[in-house]
């Protein structure tokens, strides 16, 4: 239990947490604006990961070898296409259900989730897909007496920096732009927003688009970080990111980030000090405990039930 090991786990946990935070934002935004849990969001993230994987391989095949350029192209393409997935899902599976009975959107979302999972499995095969590391190397921060070296890889720096940059851009988007204002207006009162000229349909669609684009970034990060993905990663990542959103207070953007980081840290430390097998159980248990004892999360406002 020396400090070097702990520091290494903290670094790993924060990296993982950055990924969860990006996915959690998608959950929290959609929940904030239409009050539904977008159960298929984990699958959108998985699609983003596959698009990144395919993109990276294609970049290698067509000879774009300068890594930053290749990653930038892949990132933009993956974000654009995943965003289109988010848009199409909202358009096909959720929009017709607005005003339907309470559980309808959730059941539809489960349908979308099952569909996407099997779609990718059929199109890409069920086997895990490994790729060679794209970003190698890192800094060696310190070495403990036991010979354990703490490393901070360039990839981890890339992930954290990209996440922070996206967060800043995103906060600007929500707080300063007309689209962000429209979103906040819809969040407060959809009918009223539509009466004063906000295009509610378009605003909700854009929320899904933004959430999906961020999930694509998370998917690309995971592809690079773990170097192996399969069609099933969306399920667990989705539940964990949802837990992060709930832990931070669903509907709250800073909450999603905080929750994501906490979940990442908890998962890393749990695996390091307790048991790897039960790390998913730990996350589920946190979800249940938070919902029971503090349903509004750490930063959320308590929800008032309306008739």
């Amino acid at each position, binding site marked *: 239990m020396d400090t070097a090991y702990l520091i290494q786990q903290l670094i790993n946990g924060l990296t993982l947490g950055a990924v969860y935070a990006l996915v959690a934002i998608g959950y929290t935004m959609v929940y904030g604006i239409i009050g539904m*849990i977008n159960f298929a969001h984990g699958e959108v993230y998985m699609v983003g990961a596959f698009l990144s994987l395919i993109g990276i391989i*294609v970049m290698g095949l067509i000879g774009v070898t300068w890594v930053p350029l290749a990653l930038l192209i892949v990132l933009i393409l993956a974000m654009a296409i995943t965003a289109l997935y988010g848009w199409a899902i909202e358009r096909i599976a959720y929009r017709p259900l607005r005003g339907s009975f309470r559980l309808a959107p959730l059941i539809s979302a489960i349908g*979308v989730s099952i569909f996407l999972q099997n779609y990718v499995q059929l199109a890409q095969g069920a086997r895990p*897909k490994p790729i060679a590391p794209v970003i190698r190397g890192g800094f060696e921060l310190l070495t403990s007496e036991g010979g354990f070296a703490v490393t901070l890889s360039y990839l981890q720096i890339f992930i954290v920096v990209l996440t922070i940059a996206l967060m800043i851009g995103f906060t600007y988007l929500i707080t300063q732009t007309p689209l962000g204002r429209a979103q906040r207006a819809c969040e407060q009162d959809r009918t009223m927003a539509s009466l004063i000229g906000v295009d509610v349909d378009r605003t909700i669609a854009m929320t899904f688009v933004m959430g999906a684009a961020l999930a694509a970034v998370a998917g690309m990060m995971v592809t690079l970080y773990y170097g192996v993905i399969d069609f099933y990663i969306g399920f667990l990542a989705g539940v964990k990111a949802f837990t992060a959103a709930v832990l931070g207070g669903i509907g709250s953007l800073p909450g999603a980030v905080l929750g994501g980081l906490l979940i990442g840290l908890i998962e890393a430390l749990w695996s390091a000090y307790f048991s790897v097998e039960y790390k998913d159980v730990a996350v589920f248990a946190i979800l249940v405990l938070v919902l029971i004892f503090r349903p509004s999360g750490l930063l959320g406002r308590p929800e008032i039930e309306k008739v």
Partner: protein
Amino acid sequence: MAVADLNAATRPAPATPFQAALKDAALVALVAMALAGPIVGLQTVDRGGSLTVDARFAEVAVGIVIVFFGRLGLALSDRGLRLPSYGIAAGLAAAGFLLPWPTDLLGVLAIAAGAALVIRGLAGQYGAHRQSKAALATETDEEKADRLRRLFTRGLGFLLLAAAVLLPMMPFANSYILDTAIRVLTYMMLAWGLNIVIGLAGLLDLGYVAFYAVGAYTYALLSKDHGFGFWGALPLSGLFAASFGVLLGFPVLRLRGDYLAIVTLGFGEIIRIVLLNWTNFSGGPNGIGSIPRLTFFGHPFVRNAPEGVVPFHQLFGLDFSPLHRSIFFFYLILVLALVVNVFTIRIRRLPVGRAWEALREDEIACRALGINPTNTKLTAFAIGAMFAGFAGSFFATTQSFVSPESFTFLESAMILAIVVLGGMGSQLGVALAAILVIGLTEAFRGLAEYRMLVFGLGMVLIMIWRPRGLLSHRDPTILINSGKGVRP
């Protein structure tokens, strides 16, 4: 919709409906190309230890063409041009049958698109026809239709029951048919149990399979390690599953519907992961094998019984046949499923059943009336769990082997799909859906890999078109806002 129409009116109007439809279809085809292009068109394959990409652009291109024409037909039909739409449908179907497709799936897709167009067109015409008549319909007409519907439902129910009772006596009943029927009935029982939770009480439980697992493992451990017989272990595993339901339900049932869904999903996964990793207790991934087979009240279904035990066929003076066991299992699960069914029908009329349905419709109003929501929900949750436990112990004794693999989330999703397809709250609908879903799975074994894909799509489409299921016409008895249930 109204807002969109207003916007359309202010824009310069497109020249003809046909051009507008063409534009619409082109747009959809473009989106489909962007969506499917990379994921379907570029397949990652492992070659020599490293991944590379195989292009499948021909298939994607053909698929896009199908999407284009399908959407064109839909758009034309929506703009009142029914005839060209039917023409496109016929063209698609003919092409599906006649052309040499790169893969069979695309041909099937083309035929399905054609069929969907025809159905959609006819449904549109029928709807318009009905709307024009609806203005004239009188109270008595509606009552008559209602009575007819009820008669039809009851008749169909009895017909199904008679068919089920007679099935094992039919000459064509071989072990394959009986095994399939047992599978259908097991899912029917599970779906009826889940129907209490979702359909009556309105609690979306995504971890229902956990209780099934609890029942199965309880039975396996009781009968294998503690020498319990089936009839002793069955109620115990039901009770155990129910107490699990109470244990899990008590803290979470206060939550809103969609939170509850995620938490139950989490519980389902926790139980599966624990079963997978707690090797001493559950055998881990290897599961528990050689669970004692069910006997006919102490008379085993074997050719040569050990000393002092009379096997089933000798008891009745029959020749030994391996079918006997299947027939007994069949009737057993039939009775178990019917118990669930009758129980549900009866409890609906009791105060607690009504409280469930009232809670489903409006929780705040129920609280105002003095119904304790947590306790009421808890009963539904526990009873649903108990039936899953019964089904689980039946599963364990028929398979004589249980492992965590049988209790994944997909299993929960399949049961949920049956309930949703049949119409939440409708007993007969759920029964038909179970037959349909399991029967279709058996019929299209060759296309088994597409099964879950179709399920997922089906769940979305049913929520859009028939949110209360295929069969059910049950609207809430009293409605405040509109007179027309959930959606027109």
